[in-house]
Each structure stands twice: as C-alpha cells, then as structure tokens.
C-alpha cells in the first residue's frame, strides 16, 4: 500500500470507531438535534405570532423565515460536539496507544472530523423533517436542496475543525463541553431569528459582520428563493477561513503534544 492508501485505511478505521460510538450512544447525536428542534417549536408556537406580526406576516411566514436559521444553528452547534469527543480521547489512555502505533498520524483527527460531519448532517435531516412536519414549506428545487446540503456540509466541516482545536486545548471534558455554548449563542446575534436591520445599531453592525448572518441568508435564499447576492460567496469564504484556521490550529496542537 502507498502512503496515501495507508492514510485512507487508517482514517476509515478511526471513522468506523467514531460512528460505532455514535450509533451505540445515540443520546449525544440525538441531543444535538433536540436543541434546534426545541428552539424551532418554541419560537414558532410561543413567539411565532408576535414576531411574525412584527415582521408583517403570521406564524406560518415566521416559520419559513426561522427554519433556515435554526438549521444553520443546529449544524454549527452539532459540529461543536467534536471537541468533547476529542478531549475525552486525549485525556484517556487510548491516545497514547494510538501514538505508539505505526499509523498515519492525521487519521485520528480525520476520523473524528469526518465522523462528526456525518452525524451533524444526520441531525440536520431530522431538524428539516420536523420543520416540514410543522408546516415549513420550501419552494426549492431538488438542485437547490442539493446545494443547501452541500453548503451545510461546508459549514459543518469548517466549524468541526475549529471545534477539534478547542477540544485539543481543553484540559477536561467539562471545559470542552462548555465551549460550544459560544457558537450556539452566535446565531441569536445574527439574522437567524429576526432580521439584522431590526436590531439596535451596535448589535446590528455585529450581526451584519459575523459569519452566521451571511450563512443564514444563503440558506434562506436556497430554500425560499430570496436573493442571495454576495452572501453566498461571503459565507463560503467564512467556511474556508474557519476550516483553515481550525485545521492549522488542530494540527499544530496535535503535533505539539508529541514534541515534549
């Protein structure tokens, strides 16, 4: 086998291990789908009439507005669970076993990241299913759905690499499990729940310039046919940027751990 074939083989082995964990303990994956679903139901049924009226529509119109934001939030928050899985491996003995074996170094991280992206996308499907069940209607063509799936995968991939780095700097699983809150909170300060231009000036500036706003607007455009404009490119650039920073940071943290 060539070096590349070894790398693929080892990464697949690590991926299988992580998927086995996910299937055996569905609570974790289920949990990351539950938060966005509960948010969706809460905002639609509790606040939907009021917010919808404020935006010049009703509950149904608000559901259509909210769903893309909830999906983006779910994908971002779900991706953050990687940090817990990685931190737990790093603090237990198994990582030292992997490090003393002749396996491709990167396979450990690759297995975690790919596994997490798959899980996140599975829970995104669940969120979409619930949204459709409570009345979300999208005029998207199959091609647009496909583009939406690809776009969400890009977000998941970027955030997961960042999350991997956060897992590596966490000394305990508890501190690793606190960090996702930051990412989970960000969409609130964007256009996920209400339009950014309805916010106070300072917050509005932040909302318009943080990554989750163009991401939400892009998904909204793909699913409801609204104008995407520059948001598509801006959010893809954010995904690539976050992924590169996360990847480079994880890599140096992971390699650094063996240089002591």
């Amino acid at each position, binding site marked *: *086998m060539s070096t590349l074939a070894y790398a693929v083989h080892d990464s697949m082995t690590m991926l299988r291990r992580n998927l*086995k964990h996910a299937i055996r303990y569905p609570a974790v994956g289920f949990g990351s789908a539950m938060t966005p679903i509960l948010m969706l139901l809460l905002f639609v049924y509790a606040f939907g009439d009021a917010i919808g009226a404020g935006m010049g529509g009703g509950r149904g119109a608000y559901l259509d507005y909210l769903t893309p934001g909830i999906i983006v939030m779910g994908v971002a928050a779900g991706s953050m669970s990687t940090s817990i899985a990685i931190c737990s491996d790093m603090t237990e003995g198994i990582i030292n076993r992997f*490090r003393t*074996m002749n396996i491709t170094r990167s396979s450990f991280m690759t297995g975690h990241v790919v596994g997490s992206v798959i899980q996140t996308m599975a829970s995104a499907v669940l969120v979409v299913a619930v949204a459709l069940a409570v009345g979300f209607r999208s005029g998207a063509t199959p091609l647009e759905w496909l583009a939406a799936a690809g776009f969400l995968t890009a977000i998941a991939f970027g955030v997961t690499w960042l999350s991997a780095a956060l897992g590596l700097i966490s000394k305990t699983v508890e501190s690793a499990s606190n960090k996702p809150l930051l990412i989970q909170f960000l969409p609130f300060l964007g256009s996920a729940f209400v339009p950014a231009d309805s916010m106070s000036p300072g917050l509005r500036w932040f909302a318009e310039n943080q990554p989750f706003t163009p991401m939400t607007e892009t998904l909204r455009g793909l699913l409801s046919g609204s104008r995407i404009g520059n948001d598509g490119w801006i959010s893809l650039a954010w995904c690539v940027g976050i992924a590169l920073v996360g990847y480079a940071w994880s890599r140096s943290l992971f390699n650094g751990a063996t*240089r002591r």
Partner: protein
Amino acid sequence: MPSSVMPTSRSGVPGSPAAVSAVGLRKAYGDKTVLDGIDLRIPAGSVFALLGPNGAGKTTTVQILSTLITADGGQAQVAGHNVATSPDGVRAAIGVTGQFAALDDLLTAEENLLLMADLLRLGKREGRSRTGELLERFDIADVAHKRAATFSGGMRRRLDLAMTLVGAPQVLFLDEPTTGLDPRSRRTMWDTVRSLVAGGTTVFLTTQYLEEADQLADRIAVLDDGRIVAEGTADELKARIPGSHVRLRFPDPAAYGRAAAAFPGAGQDDENLALRVAGDGGLGTLRTLLDRLDTAGIRAADFSVHTPDLDDVFLALTGHGTTDRGTTGTAAPPHPEETPR
C-alpha cells in the same frame, strides 16, 4: 508488518543483538531534570527491569523509548531503529502497556481488539483469529461482548495487554504493569510476561516493586533521580552490599566491650551496643557463635539474622534509607509522581 519481523536470538544471552540501547538520554521539564544521562543495553529476548521510586524517571524513559516524547539529549535505538529519526520503524516493532489502561471504554472487549487489528492492517480473517486467540488466552472470552467500561481493574489490565499483543511486538514496554493490581492478578501478569519471553519477546519493564524485578528480570537497573545508580542481575546487585550477618546486641557497655574483644572481625555499632558478625545465619553458624559467647561468659540481650534482599540493595544504592533520612523500611521517599503532559 510487525509480525513478520522476529528477533534473531531467543536466548537473551549478553552476546545477542541489543533490542534496546540508549546512550546519554536526557530530559528536563523546565528547570527540573527528569533524566540525567541514561545508558541502556538490553539484549534481544531478555527481560529488563527499571527499578525505582515514583518520580525517578521510569515513565519518562519508557515514553522516550516508545516515541511518545522526544529526548533533549542523547540517542536511543529500539529494534534497530533510531527513536528520533525513524519513529515509525520503532512503532512498528513495539507494544506499549502503560500504567493506566489504554482502551476504548465505549467499545466491547472484542471490538477493542479488532480496532487494533484494523490499525495494524492485519486483514479481516487474521484480525478475527488473532482476536479470538487473545480473548481466550487472557481469559476474557466470556465477556468479549461486554463494554470495557464495565470491567474490573484486573480485567482492564488484561484487555489492555491483549490489545498491545495483537501486533505480536518484538519489544514490549510494560510501565508498572502490576501497580494497583491484587496479588492474584499480579501473579497472572507475571506468568504472562514469562510466557511472552519464552516466545522470544524482549520485555522492558518498569516497577517500584523489588520482588517483581527479582521474579521477572534477567537484568535490573536501579534508577534514582534521573540516573542509573546500579545495573546487573539480581544476584550481582545483592552482592554489592554487605552479605548476610548476625546482629548481636548487648545489655551494657562492659559486655559489649568484652564481646568486641572476642569477635575482633565484627563490625561495631557503639551507639546501640551491637556487633555485626558475618555469617549466613545457618544453624551451624549460629551454634558456633553462641558457643563462643558462652565460652567468653558474655550474655547477649538479643540477636537477629540479616539476609540481604533487593530492599537492602535499593536503600544502599539510592541512599534513601536509614543512613540519609532516618527512614527505615520498604518504600522510597515520597517523590511527587511525574505527570508529563
């Protein structure tokens, strides 16, 4: 593949090629020197024990030799590969079982072993047969489908070692393999090590138990504060301290004075009014000794027979014994446990 490379010598005699060798290994964390120039040479097929108290640098030595950390100075070869320049070569030839069980708690025993087989790229069929074999051998076949998280300490250690052996390593590192185990599990571990050595594996063992080194090792190095203070077979080390002796204590200075005159060659301990008379403590020796005391008309307050064990060696060599710090006994001084992370 590790399984295809078997050691050329199974004898472990000093002339056979070195499975592990190191020259001048150094390691410091900040301004704390952990290893201060370690030299090692371990013949293939033998058992080597690194004996020392907590904090002596045992784990650090294993971590360097098993490529987990890099040394600050010196060099080391394991199974013919330089640990610094050819770490993957080393990794392909070694197995490491540390102080804490390195297993995947969420997977079953069988899945843990199959994970190792996959990572060693053994192929489905060989992986399955290896796994079945090891489950039987380590007496965990009946719990093969239970999650590792539910295992007792002894079972975890057995599974851990079984995982290490999936790849049939040439050189096996065991870092304090029996720390925290009950006596029965400890015996089982010793038997396992012996059978591995019989199969040609070179074993590098660290321990703070003198008995363990005595029981298992062909050669022992005593590590103290980052330096090797002695190396040799258990018998060679025992020979380095004064031999068996009988200690006689006397009730008063007068009796002590007369006894000292009667045994001119004996070591004198004026403070305690005691004499150390060389001798093996056998019945014949004792009778002769007591006869001589009777003849001289001296009464001893009490006597005791001392045979050197590795404990004496340890204390004599590390200086952490009665002489230095006023502590007697078995345990080394309480160094803080090293936790390099």
